């Protein structure tokens, strides 16, 4: 087990190193840097001014030096300075994280609390009209772009209340908090709820076919006990995987939803930074996302061993 964990940790470092190289190179093959953008807006370009600014930002140095500079900083906890605001990148990123984390947490909560029960119902009622309706619903959840769902919600809000929710970092009332956090979280979580439901359904169906379920029924266990106590308990493992991996991949939905609802979270900040070619922000944010994904994968694998005593990692 220990050897397995050590090996996994080593591979995580290799993966993160690979990502850092790819992101760094990709951002620098982009034609035009921040200096070009700033000067294009100004109209007139004095080459000496441009060279000065490039030197100040370290853009005149060889790419390898720039990379080493970044990594050395990362290891010291120094993420560099944002090109746009000229503030430390860390101060720009940190305050935005709680907003996005809250949205992501609520979205996951929504997807588990909707997706798992509906998946169980769908599996238990396999082949009925209810099952069909739920399957179509879950497929539609995977087909609706979350930004469109967000726009539809805004439209409904205008039609019902005559107004749109405007983001306020410190909501004063409960209703305001719900409007600001829960509604966008539902727009993000709808997709993962659909995914959770599909996985729960197919995993439940797999388990319900097995002998021990027949045994449970034969000894006279109630339907509810069979479905929840015997079946769901054994079917939950793949569901945990999906929720765990979705936790990291929610960022895609968060990017567009934060844009629609005008929420100043870290996901929308990534898009803004990409538009502005704000390298320090983009590369650090992408590294952060990669760390979250890699850790989520690792945690899911470890949870497997906890939830299923038959699984023991040996290597």
């Amino acid at each position, binding site marked *: 087990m220990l050897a397995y964990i050590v090996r996994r940790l080593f591979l995580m470092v290799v993966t993160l190193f690979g990502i850092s190289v790819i992101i760094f190179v*990709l*951002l620098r093959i982009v034609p035009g840097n921040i200096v070009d953008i700033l000067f294009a807006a100004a109209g007139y370009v004095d080459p000496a001014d441009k060279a000065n600014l490039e030197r100040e930002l370290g853009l005149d140095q060889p790419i390898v030096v720039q990379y080493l500079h970044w990594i050395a900083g990362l290891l010291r906890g120094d993420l560099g300075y944002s090109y746009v605001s000229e503030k430390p990148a860390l101060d720009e990123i940190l305050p935005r994280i709680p907003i996005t984390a809250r949205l992501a947490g609520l979205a996951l909560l929504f997807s588990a609390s909707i997706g798992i029960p509906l998946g169980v119902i769908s599996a238990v009622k396999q082949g009925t009209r209810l099952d069909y309706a739920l399957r179509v619903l879950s*497929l539609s959840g995977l*087909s609706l*772009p979350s930004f469109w769902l967000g726009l539809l919600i805004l*439209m409904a809000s205008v039609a019902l209340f005559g107004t749109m929710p405007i983001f306020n970092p410190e909501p004063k009332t409960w209703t305001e908090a719900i409007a600001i956090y829960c509604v966008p979280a539902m727009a993000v979580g709808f997709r993962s709820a659909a995914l959770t439901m*599909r996985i729960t359904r197919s995993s439940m169906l797999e388990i319900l076919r097995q002998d021990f379920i027949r045994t449970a029924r034969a000894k006279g266990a109630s339907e509810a006990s069979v479905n929840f106590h015997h079946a769901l308990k054994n079917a939950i493992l793949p569901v945990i995987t999906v929720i765990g991996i979705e936790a990291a991949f929610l960022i895609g939905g968060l990017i567009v939803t934060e844009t629609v609802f005008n929420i100043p979270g870290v996901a929308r900040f990534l*898009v803004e930074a*990409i538009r502005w070619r704000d390298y320090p922000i983009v590369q650090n944010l992408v590294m952060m996302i990669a760390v979250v994904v890699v850790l989520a994968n690792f945690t899911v694998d470890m949870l497997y061993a906890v939830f299923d005593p038959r699984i023991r990692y040996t290597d």
Partner: protein
Amino acid sequence: MAAINYDSELKRAGANATHGWRRLAFLAQRHMLGTIGLFFMLLFVWAAAFADLICRYDPLSVDSAHALLHPDARHWMGTDSFGRDVWSRIIHGARISLAVGIGSTALGSLFGVSIGLASGYLSGWVDLVFQRVTDILQALPLLVLALIMTAALGPSLPNVIIAIAIPLIPTVARVIRANTLALRELPFIEAAKSIGMSETRIALRHILPNTLAPLIVLATAQLGSTILTEASLSFLGLGIPEPFPSWGRMLSESAAEYVRTAPWLVIFPGLAISLAVFGTNLFGDALRDILDPRQRG
């Protein structure tokens, strides 16, 4: 292996139809949802193919005198802020979605299959290197990687196709590799080796065709997510540039501000994206049930 076997599928269902159209009609009836999905897909392809014949108006022609018109008999879906006909832009937008969907899925599959086949069949250091590369690519969500790629390559149709194709590669490579590893141990491969067939020929003639079924299932599933990703990229303003009528782009122009004043600019493009993706998802599900019965839900 998961080869296409309609006969066993039909016998299992107790059907007598064994030929041509009757067999097809039977499968269509058995997989109602898949048939509906196929219908949406054909509608989508039809719109893309005959866009010029279907629409009366040019999707790009600006007419400020007729800006933001409500849907009526002349403009079925109204007009946008430049006076362009929304119906015509949506029909022409099918071309972009289809081009990106098919283009990036095909490109991703091509590279994914090559890598997966090489990785699974050759093993050793080739496998090790490819495994690490797929690990790296899989550590970033599809949209994030596609965003960085389009930012690096610049916004244009071919670049968007490449940007969306690259994140698809690892998934395809993983599936093909796993299949190749399983196939490699089977007796017919051993037989091929024993009669002195070359490694390349075994890989291409014996292993590759046997990985087709899972590949088709995976590619159909990916088709929907590529269309969604293009829409998201364009919505964020980093996908297909103006004035091309991309569905996602149409929503970014009309976002929040038109929610109040011109809801038709929000409803119709989103509906187009959803129906196209919904159709491919429904069809993909049915196809998976038929081609890969082990995963049947």
